[in-house]
């Protein structure tokens, strides 16, 4: 059983927590403007790495707060616990954040959203 260091309550058994899957998945800001494929990336597709993973947890039997964890899915080592609205500071975790297809998709979506706004503005 994992020992998770809740940022608000301290270390607790994982049975007090709820798992929330991949962290840093951004909800498309204008869902109506994205294709089915982009929406599916947000909705259904998760990274499933063998190794370091940035994931969401919530202390549901305690403070009920959501936060993020950088955890190795092989060794179960927890490298970092950090707030839901922050990025990891651990270098390896930061690299995991930056180096995945989701960031590229988001860049594309953002570009599309900007184009859309410009068009409407024009």
């Amino acid at each position, binding site marked *: *059983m994992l*020992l998770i260091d809740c940022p608000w309550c301290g270390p607790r058994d994982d049975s007090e927590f709820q798992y929330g899957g991949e962290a840093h998945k951004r909800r498309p800001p204008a869902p109506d403007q994205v294709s089915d494929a982009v*929406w599916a990336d947000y*909705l259904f597709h998760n990274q499933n790495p063998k190794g370091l993973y940035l994931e969401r947890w919530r202390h549901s039997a305690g403070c009920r707060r959501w936060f993020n964890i950088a955890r190795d899915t092989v060794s179960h080592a927890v490298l970092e616990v950090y707030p839901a609205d922050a990025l990891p500071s651990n270098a390896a975790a930061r690299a995991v954040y930056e180096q995945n297809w989701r960031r590229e998709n988001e860049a594309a979506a953002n570009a599309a959203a900007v184009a859309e706004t410009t068009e409407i503005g024009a």
Partner: protein
Amino acid sequence: MSHQPYRLASGGHIDRDHEIEFTFNGRLYRGHPGDTLASALLANGVHFVGRGFKYHRPRGIFAAGAEEPNALIQLGHGPRTEPNLRATQVALYDGLTATSQNVWPSLRFDLASVNQWVSRFLPAGFYYKTFMWPASQWMRYEHVIRKAAGLGKAPTDRDPDRYEKMHDHVDVLIVGGGPAGLAAALAAAATGARVMVTEAKAGFGGHICFDGAQQIDGQPAAEWVTAAVAKLQAMPEVTVLPRTTVTGYYDHNYITALERVTDHLGNTPTHLVRQRFWKIRAKQVVLATGAIERPLVFADNDRPGIMLASAVREYVNSYGVLPGRETVIFTNNDDAYRTALALDDAHARITAIVDLRAEADAVAGDLVAAARDRGIKTYFNHAIIAVSGHRRVTGCSIMELAEDGTTVTGPVTSLVADCIAMSGGWSPSVHLFSQSRGTLSWDDEQACFIPDVAHEATVSVGASAGDFSLAGALKNGLKGGMEAARASGAKGRQPAAPKVDPVTEMPLRAIWQVPTNAGKGKQFVDFQNDVTAADIRLAAQEGYLSVEHTKRYTTTGMGTDQGRTSNVNALAILANARDAHIPDVGTTTFRPPLEPVAIGAFAGRAVGGQFEPVRSTPMDPWHHANGATFEHVGQWMRAWYYPRGSETMREAVDRECVAARTGVGILDASTLGKIDVKGPDAAEFLNRIYTNGWLKLAVGRARYGLMLGEDGMVKDDGVTVRLAEDHFHMTTTTGGTAAVLDWLEEWSQTEWPDLQVYFTSVTEQWAVASICGPKARDLLAELSDDIDLSDAALPFMGVSTGTVAGLPARVFRISFTGELSFEINVPSRHGLALWTALMAAGEKYDITPYGTESMHVLRAEKGFIIVGQETDGSVTPGDLGMDWIVASKKADFVGKRSLARTDSLRADRKQLVGLLSTDPEVVLPEGAQVVADLKPAPPMTMLGHVTSSYYSANCGRSIAMALIAGGRARLGETVHLPLSDGNLTAVVTEPQFFDPKGERLNG
């Protein structure tokens, strides 16, 4: 004392002043307190205690501890009986009764023992090869095979004993109370660290308790142990747990342990639990779990009387029991000579020592020299090639080994023996280390796997680290304990290591399969699962090269002993068959629990009424007093229906449903989930969570809302009331409350943290009585003089605050029945008073309480859905025909985008429709499959299934709802419901059956 013919006149840690009686296989025997069942049986000359798993050959007591593969017994009878216990671990108590397992009809006359004569037809993988065809017969085969293999009988009655769980946090957990573990505990405890030390046996000291005369710091080893334990027990931060087996080693140093509190007492005192299951989180773990002796793999090495050499020594020194009067010792190492010396000290006859090593390789050892000085006959470079005796060994034949050790040569010598003490070397107990995902490495010199790289914060010391000497155990135990304490944050200096006289021991000679001059005799590797060396070679020959495959194919190591005595021998023989190096073959994985654990220990106190909390409403006493029947809804106990006199359920529900539409009905709706939503952005938040619009809802008005998952599927529904600009009272389905609160909080915290809104569960703070029917307003008017109940002041979906029956109340005019209806909310403490007042005032209107069953019928008559019944996580609002509640003009809400997915727009999605069975008296079974084209047998194209189905007294016929592919295009069509007891037909209709225009809402 002469009742126990094999009990020595002195020695052992038993209470010789008391004699106790026990029964084994129906025969009465005597033993002493301090005996195990095994030692007491041996004291009575009983070796033959069970039969093999596959061949049903006679089997004897083999070991003296947890590694015992043979002596599995069924203890006790009735509800307290327990199967698969090792006689070597069962503490003897007065009146103990036990029987052998795996024998039928009896131990001495076992019908299945014929298997040993047909054994060449029972090779490795026999069951896989033989019973797989025809597949349809497997269930029948399995029944017979299981009976033949019978591993004891589970009790059929409820376990009468109590168990409990204990949670603890420690700085250093030390597993094992032998010399290394005690040294580690002393070092760690001296720093002031919080220390726990567990020992599986009743007594501490491990092998030094039975290894014979040894000195630690100039005092007898046993005295050192006693002093160490006393010192630890006196320290406030130290917990000492004897009779406690660590059963599992999980992530992040989470450890489970089973403490056998009263098993050794026979009669459990009522104030004590039988067993206690510990859940321990340790900063650091020291594994001092010792080592297990390996058997030698020679012909017919399973005959009763053939035992591990260390076990023979333990029976002599710890229990004062002589396993045999004439013992042959068969060894490949020096340690077995300790057994020879122990037997000699007890004046027992040693026929000979048979040593696989050449004299030159052994003679320099101190123990070998001691045996020679005592004149014990030793055959060096010899092997046992055959064993005589069936139910008990009577002797053996030995021959000289050829130079390379793979064959035997020269003349045969016969030796008399009623006990053969064998030793194939020692394997460190790495099970827990391996469970914690530590890796192992092969120690070629000692021929064993030792811990290599730890995965958790753990250190192995003593024999479990491959350090078999007493001096090394003490020294490295202290070091390991100190390092662990320091790593946990404690400070201190390592105590000096106690002085021990060194013992010179010579290396063992690894001959994994002892050669013989004839092909006769089975060479057992795994005694519990009856796996022989030939089975392993056959598996290798058939291509099972992976150790994991070989394990499953031959079942070696898969017994309840987890292959404690067999794994290394099996690996070595597999390696030999593959011409590979042992570490290259790899090891199998050890999994928890380390030993079988009674399910009761896992359950602890969470049994019977304490299995799960029962939630009941404030009105619960009234329901009980008035004959309600109850049903479970989640953890709630809800009134189901209220039968009068001899009414059947159908009659009661019919009566309740009619009353609710013709007079006035009352329902306890307190279990509805209630969430208080507050904050300046509360309306905006709800607007994003629900499919419909919430910004313009007026204060004092209610609105029905549908909540979707982000996938567009219906998640929950309910009515939410606006109490103030920034204050809403949300209701949810009874079963969905916790999930909805989670859902709201998740969106609030992670997606829209900028919205100022707070959620509080108030389900239990409000009691709710729902009254409905044409006379509901009249009734309420009698109890409230400060709430205007007129249509103008309190219209449908209106809310008023005031008093009802003198109690502070919020009255919602909402309806789940389609009738004029009021939901009266009062603080929970007033719930019963409100209910009682309504019942009293309602008497003249013939008020009728109705339960959840009638509530279901009444809403189904109106075609109102129940989330979880009409929906299953794959149903959109459109599927339910509820597009009217989806505000497509809203920019966004949770799930909106998914409603535009191609899949959500398919015309052939399953849609909610009504079904009217052709025979109006027939109630279609809920869950029944609906097909368009009836065929004599499956497969048939399934259209969907019945979601709700009832008899409706108000409609005068049965009604049903169903989810059917393209259902709304099928209105008027006849569909079929193929059932095992005959087919039914029904017509597809709109899913409203009563008052489709909703004219009754105004009474």
